[in-house]
């Protein structure tokens, strides 16, 4: 019950944040040169001012900014993100079409970065200030400084063009007619390079946090107690140090959810993946502001969801938090 209350409280706390985000986005929209009607008229190839007035009335653009903001918010509650003039359908439909590819890419890169960072972080911490630590930390620093899009392009040159091991782009073989397991394998095949690209960049951060966190926990009293009562070094590490050292890693997942979504914009563009990030890029190029703001809204929701899950997980791992 107490846990349930904690969950509700965390969820309620994100409502004001979301409201600020939405009001901010609406204000940005007011700053944008031209409105929906201008975009529509430009699409149609011009129109007279009387018709534009009529259209503005039809879309409710003649009301005051406050009224428009309230209308905008009520529409968002119903997940009505407006209409995309470019794609010719509601924005929410366009976004839902593209969401799975991004979620897949994020989940796989996150798992890769988390697992890799965990293992390498533990290895580095166990050999602190010896050569394995030096090598691991150096590689981490280099990947941290690497631009994701460049790493992706170099991956394509090596693994797709020269070695021909992996496909250079796309989510699956188009027109291959694969279904079921064959299709899943095909998608995994196509996602290998994008996952490695996005994952390696974030692995560096996870590795650094894991190493620092391990070193921190190893100095605590309960670890000394565990060693003193005669437990083997590996057992102390696994059962006592690792569990506690994992907490900052879990926090990092929540903190980096947004950054990862941002990173997916470039990675999806490099690998021609039909995801949300690529959609955002296309929306900027085509000046489709409705779609762009819709993507930002959905991304904010996604980040809030991830953080909520992280909080729940955190409270499970450390029961003191929920109180």
């Amino acid at each position: 019950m107490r846990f349930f209350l904690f969950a509700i409280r965390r969820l309620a706390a994100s409502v004001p944040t979301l409201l600020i985000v939405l009001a901010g986005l609406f204000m940005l929209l007011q700053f944008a040169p031209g409105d929906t009607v201008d975009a529509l008229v430009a699409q149609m190839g011009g129109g007279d001012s009387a018709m534009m007035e009529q259209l503005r009335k039809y879309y409710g653009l003649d009301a005051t900014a406050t009224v428009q903001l309230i209308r905008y918010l009520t529409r968002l509650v119903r997940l009505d993100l407006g209409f995309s003039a470019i794609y010719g359908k509601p924005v929410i439909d366009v976004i839902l079409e593209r969401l799975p590819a991004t979620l897949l890419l994020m989940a796989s890169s996150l798992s890769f970065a988390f697992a890799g960072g965990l293992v390498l972080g533990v290895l580095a911490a166990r050999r602190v200030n010896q050569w394995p630590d030096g090598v691991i930390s150096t590689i981490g620093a280099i990947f941290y400084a690497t631009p994701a899009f460049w790493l992706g392009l170099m991956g394509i040159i090596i693994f797709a063009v020269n070695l021909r091991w992996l496909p250079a782009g796309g989510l699956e073989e188009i027109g291959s007619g694969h279904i079921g397991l064959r299709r899943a394998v095909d998608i995994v095949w196509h996602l290998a390079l994008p996952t490695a690209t996005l994952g390696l960049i974030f692995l560096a951060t996870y590795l650094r946090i894991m190493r620092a966190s391990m070193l921190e926990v190893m100095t605590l009293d309960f670890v000394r107690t565990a060693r003193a009562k005669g437990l083997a070094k590996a057992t102390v590490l696994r059962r006592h140090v690792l569990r506690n050292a994992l907490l900052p890693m879990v926090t990092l997942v929540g903190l980096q959810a947004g950054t990862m979504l941002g990173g997916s914009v470039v990675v999806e563009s490099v690998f021609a993946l039909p995801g949300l990030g690529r959609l955002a890029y296309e929306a900027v190029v085509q000046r489709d502001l409705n779609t762009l703001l819709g993507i930002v809204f959905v991304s904010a929701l996604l980040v809030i969801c991830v953080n909520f899950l992280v909080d729940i997980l955190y409270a499970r791992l450390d029961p003191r938090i929920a109180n």
Partner: protein
Amino acid sequence: MQTLTRFLGNPVALIGLVLLVLVTAMALSAASLFPNNPLDLAGRPLQWPLSNPRFWLGTDVQGRDIAAVMFYGARVSLLIGVVATLIAMTIGILIGALAGYYGGIADELLMRLTEAFQTLPNFLLLLVLVAVFGSDIKTVTIAIGLVSWPASARLTRAEFLSLRNREFVEACRTIGMRDMQIIFREILPNALPPVIVYASVVMAVAILLESALAFLNLSDPNVPSWGNLIGGGRAVLRTQWYVSAIPGVAILMTVLAVSLIGQGLNDALNPRLKRR
């Protein structure tokens, strides 16, 4: 002084410093080494590096001298990195200081705002700002600064929270100093070291954000930039891969330099942590 000796005695910091000096030298010597406009046609397109003594890094799809774009690109990357970082740190320190010093409702409101910014993926917000306000170099720099401040605000706030009830602050209040004086002249200098270390992270991210924007061709097209060169090289990636490969190394080195210096500063300011 002791901090400086520790900083210079640290190999990590030294490597970073040397790299940064190299990139800065590139930026400063660009105009004297390459007096022509780096975006103009210089010779036959797509010549391989070292194949023509006039273009030792080769030419790109549009026949521009890659070496010239690299040198001028160093200017843009450093300039955008420094200015955007200054903007982000100013906003972050201001918001964090006010929230941490006053607490209560001010803290609540400012932290909600910070949280809202942290909820939005910063690259997506950057795309929105560029889509709305255009993409000339000034707008891009300000936009990068505007999306990069939240973490430094949190850091400053945490420092202020731990400092605001110290005795020296109480003493300042007792002698009747004004709030602004206490915040900026008394507490801020004490709160600054970790925030300055964090500035290196902000700068590293700012350079990466600009290069990603330029790679997607959404940054200022009239400015020679590494990201832009990589983006242009995509069309010939399968055959002339060097066009995309070369500028990436420069971005990597610059960001590495900045983050190594940050790490060195951190070690120098917290010598106790380093030995662990």
